[in-house]
Every structure is written in C-alpha cells, then in structure tokens.
C-alpha cells in the first residue's frame, strides 16, 4: 500500500509540470472611451481558445486577460491585428504572472 502511494505520488509530481497554468496579461489599448466601445474587443478575446476571463479598465485603458498559458501565446502582431479590426490601437502588453481574478 505504501509502495502504491509512493508510485502515485511520483506520477502526480511527474505530471505537475505538464498541468495547465494560468497566466495574466495586461493589454494596453488606445481609443477605448466607454463601456459600450470595448465590448466587441472583449468578445473577440473571449473567443480565443484558452482565454478564461477578460476584464476592461476604462480608467487605465487596459484589458486584463487570464489565459491558459499552455493554449494561448499572445504575440504583438496578433493583438495589433485583433484590436485594429475592432477599431482600436494596441500599444503593448505585460505578463503579470498568475491570474488575480
């Protein structure tokens, strides 16, 4: 029984690095001026496989995205295009570690 527990523990440890981790990105966007404006961009971000939550801060001009970092790798080119299509200008992003919300 003790041997079985040891094997199970070892398996879980081995699997741990492969388990999904969440990463939080803060995207800096120019041109958003009201709650109604930013909704289409939020919707587009939520459609990306692996994105778990999206929150906008109009005051700061940011959109905070929580995503599974195994599935999502944001690139500046991808985000530039996404926000251009929605009528805004992408300025850059920060990866701020684990999701806070």
């Amino acid at each position, binding site marked *: 029984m003790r041997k079985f527990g040891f094997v199970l523990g070892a398996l879980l440890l081995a699997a741990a690095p492969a388990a999904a981790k969440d990463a939080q990105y803060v995207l800096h966007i*120019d*041109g*958003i*001026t*009201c*709650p*109604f*404006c*930013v*909704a*289409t*961009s*939020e919707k*587009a971000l939520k459609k990306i496989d692996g994105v778990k939550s999206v*929150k*906008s*801060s*109009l*005051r*700061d*001009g940011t959109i905070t995205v929580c995503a599974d970092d195994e599935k999502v790798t944001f690139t500046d080119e991808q985000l530039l295009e996404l926000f*251009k*299509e*929605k*009528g*805004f*200008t992408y*300025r850059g992003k920060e990866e701020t570690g684990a999701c806070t919300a």
Partner: protein
Amino acid sequence: MAIAVSSAFKIKRLPHRLFGFAGGLVLFGCGAAFAAPVTFNTALPVGKGAFVLRNQLIYSEASRNGTGLSDLRDVALLGYGLSPDLALFGSASWLRRDVDTASGLSRDADGLGDVQVFARYTAYRHDFSGGAFRVAPFFGIELPTGENRKRDSLGQLPPGLQPGSGSVDGLAGAVVSWASLDMNIDGQVFWQENTKANGINKGDVFKADAAFYRRVYPRELSAYTKGFLFGGLEVNYRHEGRTRMNGVIDPDSGGETLFLTPGLHYARRLWMLEGAVQIPVAQSTNGTNLQQDFSVRIGIRINL
C-alpha cells in the same frame, strides 16, 4: 357646398404646407460602438464583423395658422463593420402622420417609410490613451420603399402625408468625432439630393450639426466602471430648398430651422439608452410652410 369648396381648397394646399416638415427621413446617428450624438452621425468605428442595432422612436409636431401636423416614427438602423474602416448601414422606418387643418379637416396615414442604405469610410483615425479622433465621409441612397400613393375617403393623400417619397435620392456627408472618457465632440455636414417622383421634386436638404457631451456619472472612474451617463447639447441646422411641382416652384415650401437639442445617453457594455428633445430656436420657412414646434427622440443601441 361652401364647405366642400373650402375642403377642396385646403386639400389642394396641404401638400405645399407639409414639405418642410416631412422633408425625408433623417439620417440619424450611424450607430457606432461608441457614445454618439442622438440626432446625427458619429465617425467612431464599428468593429470588423460586428453588428450594431439602433432603434429610435421619434415624435414631432409642426404647425402654422391653425394647421397642425404630428409625425410619429420608429426608425431601426443596423450597422455592420465590413472592415476596420468601412461600415455599412441600413435603416428602415414605420411612421404615422396626422394633420388637422384650421378648417377642421383631419387626414392621416401610416406605413413603412423609405429605406436608406449607406456606407461610411474612416478616412483618418488617431487613437490615444483614453480617447479617439476620427474623420469619416459617408454616402448612400434613399430608396422609394415607402408607399407614396395612399388614399383616404377624400382621395389621394398629399405627398407630405405619404409614408414614402417615391423617389431615389442621394445622400452624402462627412462626420468628425473626438471622444475621450470625459467628453465627446462631434460635427457633421450632410447633403440629400432629392429627385423627381410623381411630378414632384422636393427641395434638396443640407444639414450641419454639432454635439458636445460630457460624462456626468460617475464623476470619478474606478478601475472597472460599468456604466457611463453622458449629458450634453446638440445644435442642428437644417436647410431645405423649395419644391418644384411639374417644374413650377412652390412658394410655400422649404426654409431653414436651427434647433438646440439637450440630450442624455447611458452606456453599458452591451446596450445604450438615449434621449433628446429638439427645440427650434430660429426658423424661417417659406410662405405658409409649417414650422416645427418640437421633436422628441428616445432610443436604444445594442451590440449584437
């Protein structure tokens, strides 16, 4: 017999008097995904692949020398972002008009109005932190989808009461918008070239509009503010040329009006409520053409 003669006279005069008031559907705000003026267009964008629906209920009254006209219409506008810079719009309306003349004659009509379709292209854009500036020309046409040969017990209704114009008309203009988290400023010039239908060529319409809106609630933004209430003032100038009937100028048609329009809109993520009252502060209509008393608009915009 005297009454019949009088009525016939009034019926004959009615079309002339109504042109100024019923001078075509208003190309109201090209419902973008931004806070925008209530009575006209904005240059701010509709995202690629996004739909925006705007619906306004508009009630107006006009009168002169004991004759009064009321106009109630529901105007629905659907916008679609074809590309980041090009948006297509289509608007359809249902309307009802009632007229009561000084002699006691009452006539009315209702039905679907003319459809407008137009495109708006963003010619210049500049985004900055918490704000945006856009310049966008637009052009389109008004199609004669509304009925324009309606009749009642007295015969065919005058053109000013008909829901449709019967003519294919051209629309063009340009709009400039500057928006920030605290305020929005918009300006528009608009031209409608009216063509001849049923022997009648309504005067062309020129409009110039400006709007200033300021956020009144919340006073201070938090990181995740959910809704904005904007209050402001719009100024609407409208000039309509004289109508020609079988080539003859109607002296009782056309004119110009200047409105002051206080308005409000409350914006959430997926919808926006709006309302405004247009008050004429200066009017000069030709001959006995009716003068506008007021116009009230309430509406909703939805991000689909």
